[in-house]
């Protein structure tokens, strides 16, 4: 606001002194009015629920004995709770595998689509992006059926080679079953972001590189990838946050494999179960905040190690 008032300054000295205060005050008010609608929604739907959850997480409600203030006891419990820790360990392991896989696939596809121009480019781009347009819930249900050994295609495919189909909903293979669903869903989305970043590169750079004798592979490695590094880091942060908050897909597949996917499978599911299944809103809130802390630490650590390459945040 101040810069605007400053620019308006050139008037006669007397006038300026007289009206400056009123104008400033009036513009101040108008500014607040413009921010108002956003501010109200922001406070009502983000800050207030967060504050309330934080408040809840400091209490403990027992079936016998009622509610009492316990300060950080719920957090102490969360970080010693095998259910929370195993869930957190699962999403961290999942992130370590799923994110590189997704980004590698997205990057490869983006580079290919960028380098090859043919009739099929637009069509392939749309097809690769399509899974992202399918709601995660529908996607999870669909894969749940595809994984079925009695009416999914796996039995036929494996039967053709005389093998028995793997059960991707079993304890030992659920990791890969989920990995496949998540990659299918998100790789196309990341591809579009990277593709858009590639389109933004000045083509004269390629020309210069070609004149210096660089091949397609070298152009991709030495020019394209370094130039889209900020976009790569952006999608890494997106996928890191998304994976640590893993919820939709396992929650849906739970209807098909409750034995494999327990109620504490991921920290978010555990928080949901505590709050809405067991009416333990206090502990559920504490788990949510503990997870929030974990996400913050992971993202911060990641941004710290990539601080030289990023151009945003």
């Amino acid at each position, binding site marked *: 606001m101040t810069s605007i008032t400053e620019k308006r300054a050139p008037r006669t000295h007397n006038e300026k002194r007289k009206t400056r205060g009123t104008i400033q005050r*009036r513009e101040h*008010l*108008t500014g607040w*009015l*413009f921010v*108002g*609608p956003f501010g*109200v*929604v922001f406070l*009502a739907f983000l800050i207030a629920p967060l504050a309330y959850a934080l408040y809840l997480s400091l209490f403990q409600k*027992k*079936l*016998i*004995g009622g509610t009492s203030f316990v300060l950080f006891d719920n957090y102490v419990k969360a970080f010693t709770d095998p259910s929370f820790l195993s869930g957190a360990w699962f999403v961290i392991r999942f992130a370590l595998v799923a994110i590189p896989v997704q980004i590698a696939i997205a990057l490869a596809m983006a580079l290919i689509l960028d380098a090859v121009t043919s009739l099929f480019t637009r069509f392939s781009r749309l097809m690769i992006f399509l899974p992202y347009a399918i709601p995660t819930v529908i996607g999870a249900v669909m894969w749940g*059926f595809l994984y*079925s*050994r*009695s*009416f999914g295609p796996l039995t036929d495919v494996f039967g053709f080679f005389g093998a028995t189909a793997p059960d991707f909903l079993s*304890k030992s293979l659920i990791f890969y079953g989920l990995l496949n669903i998540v990659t299918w869903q998100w790789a196309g989305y990341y591809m579009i972001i990277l593709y858009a970043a590639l389109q933004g590169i000045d083509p004269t750079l390629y020309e210069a590189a070609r004149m210096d004798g660089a091949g397609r592979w070298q152009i991709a490695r030495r020019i394209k990838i370094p130039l889209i590094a900020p976009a790569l880091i952006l999608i890494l942060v997106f996928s890191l946050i998304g994976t640590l908050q893993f919820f939709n897909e396992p929650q849906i597949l739970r*209807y*098909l*494999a*409750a*034995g*494999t996917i*327990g*109620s504490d499978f991921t920290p978010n599911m555990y928080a949901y*179960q505590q709050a*809405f*299944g*067991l*009416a333990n*809103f206090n502990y559920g809130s504490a788990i949510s905040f503990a997870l929030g802390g974990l996400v913050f630490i992971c993202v911060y650590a990641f941004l710290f190690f990539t601080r030289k390459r990023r151009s945003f945040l």
Partner: protein
Amino acid sequence: MKTRRTLATVAMLAAASGLVACSSDEGGSDASNCTNTITKQDLPVVTMWAWYPNMQLVVDNFNEANNEVQVCWTNVGQGGDQYDKFQTAISAGTGAPDVIMVEMDRIPTFQIQNALVDISGYGRDAVRANYGDGAWKDVSVGDAVYGVPVDGGPLAMIYRKDIFDKYDITPPTTWAEYEQAAQKVKDAGGPLFGDLGANVPALMMALQIQKGAAPFTYDSAQPESIGVRLNDQASKDVLDYWAGLVRKGLIGTQDQFTPEYISGVINGNYATYISAAWAPGYLTGAGVGQGQDTGTFAVAPLPQWDPNNPVQVNWGGSAFSVTSQSKKPELAAKAAYGLYADQESLTDGWTNQIIFPLNLTALNNPEFVDLKVAFFDGQQANKEVYVPAANAYQGVVYSPFGQYYFDAMTKQISEMSAGSVTGSQAADRLQEDVTKHATEQGFTVR
């Protein structure tokens, strides 16, 4: 400038009032959005949540016959989905209906949160003789009554006649015979004999109770004290028995109520299905017994541990309870006692196999007893199996943290099926887990 500011103010006020409008919704307790149509507009209305498939008819029958109160019914989801909503309403202190359908094993869970009303004083004596003692015990905590029994789930063994004939098996009457028959079918290259689903812990609890386990002892007169016995010898024996069947490859470990399991039942992948009296109705609804498998099902009594002292157990079964958020508990209790208690509703329920009625006027009705059940190819299943099982049922004491117990049990059955723990170890871990939870919740564990 002035007009613009006025506009901005108006816009902001509009946005703010929109927010207010959103928050003034009263949710589930609102009587204006019933699924049924209330014709007697001048009578007081109580709201209700229930998920019986023929609930529309049941409510219409009640409203038509009653001149004191009318029921406004909605189906907010089946089982767990409804409990989550009810639980949230309890925590919020508002939003619950007046009358609610709950499975009997959940009653103590809600009762201990003071979410249900003791309805013994609201005309229970008039209907006391209409239900058996076991049914009353299941809806009671101590002497207080927290629900009106509607349907039960006496357990039995559903089996495939075609598979039994092919492998020359007669229905096993003891669990030892069950295992021998399973081995015989396996040795002859036949299908799996049964299934242990990790997602049906209530069934495992019933099977443990059959051998003499008493998982919980609890009295509302001493609400802070609870007995937890999840790893006594009977509980361990039953878990070890089922773990053994899995280890020997005699039964499957597929989660039940899933498309995968149902298609297995239709395909004849399982020779038996240990389940409750409502199972035929459920299976019919899921498409079982209507194609190539028509007329292949039959039912026999649940196998016993000691044939000289048979024990009958129950899985599921529901009741109508009055919630403590109700402002008209007396009228709500009238509805709870009257709904699904008239002959027309009951007859519709049992002829369509939606419920196994606990109301003795239906249970003792010769037409019900002699019914030739279509799903069982005309077998008189009620007379031969289910009615005797229901009559011998003694009732159970359920825990006040049913959700936690069942979740923990699912986890252990899943571990057991994967072979990472034995049945006995699973029982010990379950005991440890549930005891810890009970202590954390402030109980003194006996």
